[in-house]
Structure formats: structure tokens, C-alpha cells
């Protein structure tokens, strides 16, 4: 039952998606490739589109993966799966533990959790760099890709460019260079 599998998978992803969308990406990547719903390469396209769309990137990825795998019903199943844990946890916290994040045990759990979020994101960067031929044998192709990467990173960090703008410009560069 593909819908149930999508719901279950994205429920687990939603449950552990701490620290913002980009930390969730490697988890989604591991799950969609393990289920053979798509390849890492295809998933990169999805992130690009999810990053250009309004709304949270992890939720957008869920909609995309669900739709690609099982149509509209699939999109609904994976979206419900990814938001349901948030809903439950927020309701429980709001009803009982409004000061939960002041609790010393919760704080020390986050002390251990935050560096893991960083590790997850670094892993995602390496994984996607490899699958997009950014890391690999040196060629004209890999050098131009590295050029796009460095310019994008520079624009993002130094000039605080908007992510959507970066995606659009690199797309234009892609058309100019590779078609």
C-alpha cells in the first residue's frame, strides 16, 4: 500500500525534523532513495523547486515526492504525514509544557542535538555535491559547476542574496552553459 508507506515514512521524517528544512533534506533523501521513489539526482531537482516555492522546504519536498510517487492522493498522504507530528507535539507542549524549553533536561538534550543537525546538513552538502558531479574527476564540466557553486555561496553569504534569486540565476547559467 503505497499511500500508507508514504504517510508512515513522512510521519517519521516529520517527527525528527529538528532545526529547519535543510537539516531534514538528508533524512528525506535517505528515505526516498531507500524506497526507490527517486534517485539523489532527481531529488536535487525537487529541492531546487521546493526552495523556489513559498512555504517550508521540507513540507514542499513532501508534497513533491508524494505527487511524483502516487499522484494527488500521494501528495496528501505525505503532507499529512510530515505535519502531523508537529501538530501533536505543538498541541502537547502548548497544553502542558509552555515552559518546556526552559527545562534543564530539555536544554541539555538540545546541547547534544544541535551539533547533529549541523552534521546532517554537512552530510547533505557532501552527498549532493557528489551526485551533482561537483566532487569527482576534474573536467571542464566540474570546473564550471564549481564556479556556479562558489559564486552562489559568495552571493548568499556576502551579499545575503535571496535563495530563489540564486536558483533562478544558476538556472539561466545552466541553460547558457550546458544546452
Amino acid at each position, binding site marked *: 500500500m503505497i499511500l500508507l508507506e508514504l504517510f508512515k515514512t513522512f510521519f517519521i521524517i516529520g517527527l*525528527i*525534523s*529538528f*532545526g529547519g*528544512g*535543510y*537539516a531534514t*533534506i538528508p*533524512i528525506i533523501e*535517505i528515505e526516498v532513495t531507500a524506497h526507490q521513489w527517486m534517485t539523489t539526482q532527481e531529488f*536535487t*531537482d525537487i529541492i531546487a*523547486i*521546493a526552495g523556489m516555492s513559498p*512555504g*517550508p522546504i*521540507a*513540507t*514542499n519536498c513532501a508534497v*513533491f515526492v508524494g*505527487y*511524483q510517487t502516487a499522484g494527488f492522493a500521494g*501528495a496528501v498522504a505525505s*503532507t499529512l504525514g510530515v*505535519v502531523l*507530528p*508537529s501538530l501533536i507535539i505543538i498541541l502537547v*507542549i*502548548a497544553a502542558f509544557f*509552555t515552559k518546556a524549553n526552559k527545562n534543564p*533536561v530539555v536544554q541539555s538534550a*538540545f*546541547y547534544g*542535538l*544541535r551539533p*547533529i543537525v*549541523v*552534521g*546532517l*546538513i*554537512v552530510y547533505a*552538502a557532501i552527498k*549532493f*555535491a557528489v551526485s*551533482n558531479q561537483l566532487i569527482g574527476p576534474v573536467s571542464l564540466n566540474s570546473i564550471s*559547476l564549481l564556479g*556556479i*557553486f562558489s559564486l552562489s*555561496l559568495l552571493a*548568499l*553569504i556576502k551579499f545575503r542574496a*535571496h535563495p*530563489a534569486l*540564486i536558483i533562478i*540565476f544558476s538556472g539561466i547559467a*545552466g*541553460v547558457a*552553459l*550546458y*544546452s
Partner: protein
Amino acid sequence: MKKNWKLLMEIFFTFLKIGPITFGGGYAMIPVIEREVVNKKKWIQMEDITDVLALAGSAPGAMAINSATFVGYRIAGISGALAAMLGVLLPTFLIVIALSIFYLHFKDNPKVEAAFHGIGPAVVALICLAAYKIAPTAIIDKTTLVIAGLTVVFLLFLHIHPVIIIFSGMLVGICLVKIRTRLGGHTRIDGHKKEVG
């Protein structure tokens, strides 16, 4: 009961308007929530927003959805939470569905393929940016540096599932702080509170 429905519809439509603004991370949405929910509708007070921010940022899930759910709950309980969540979710859900259809239709076009070939490295840059932003609040001493490094190694070479790593990380955090406190030491456990949205 009738009045309740009216309130729920109002919550739903307010967040329906906020939804498409959540472009580029949930933090972009906070000033809009302030304007709509605190100033215009006077549903909750400014002080509550601080609570919302702190909890929505540390609970799992997207910042935008978490804060909408939380605000909805404050206004009208569980049904309010559902109304706000569905409201904030619906516009972006439909937009992404439309984009999926578009993508599936055009992905084999050579021009589109070339565009995505160029976008690949930009996505890697975006992921690096996320790490760069979150690192100063997360890696605050040698222990956290080691934990981050081990996470990468475990994921890349041992293919351990993130669920296991995340829960053991929390456990390690709790134990480490306990042991250090017992030994009379002190651990600075919070960097700056914000996380990337």
C-alpha cells in the same frame, strides 16, 4: 457553536493569507503574524509571540507551520490549531502541486535539463549556507564539534539512520551535562537560541 465556526473560519482565512508569505523560511512570517494576529485582530498579545517563537523553533517541523498551529491553539483550542495549520498549509500545497505537474511535464526537455544541471551546485551552496548559519549556535565547544564530526562519519560511511543518531544525540547531551554537573563542572548549553527556519 455558530460563533465558534465563524471564529474558526476567520482563523483559517487569516493564515491562508499568511501562508504564501512564508517564502524563504518561517522567520519571514513572524512580523506578518504580529501585524495580522496581534495588531489587527487582537487575538493574542505581543508577549505571547516570544513564547511562540521559542517553542516553534525548538519543536520538530517547519517553523511556519509550528507557529501557526501554536497561535491557532492560543486563540481557539485544538480546533483553532487545526484551522490555522490547514490555512497556512493549503496555498503552498496547491502551488507545489502545480509546480510538480509542470516539472513532470518539462523535465526531459533539454533546456530544462541544462537549467537543472546549473541549479545543482546552487542547491549545494544553499545547503552549505544552512550549515554556516546554524553552526555558531550549535558548535560551541570541543564536545559539540566532535559530535558534529561523528555524525557526518556515521552517515557517510556507516549508513546509520538519522533517527538513531538524533535520539542518541539527545541522550548523549543529557548524560554529558549530568556527568559534568556531578563532577562540579559547568556546561554552557545554549548558544544563541535561534535556529534556521
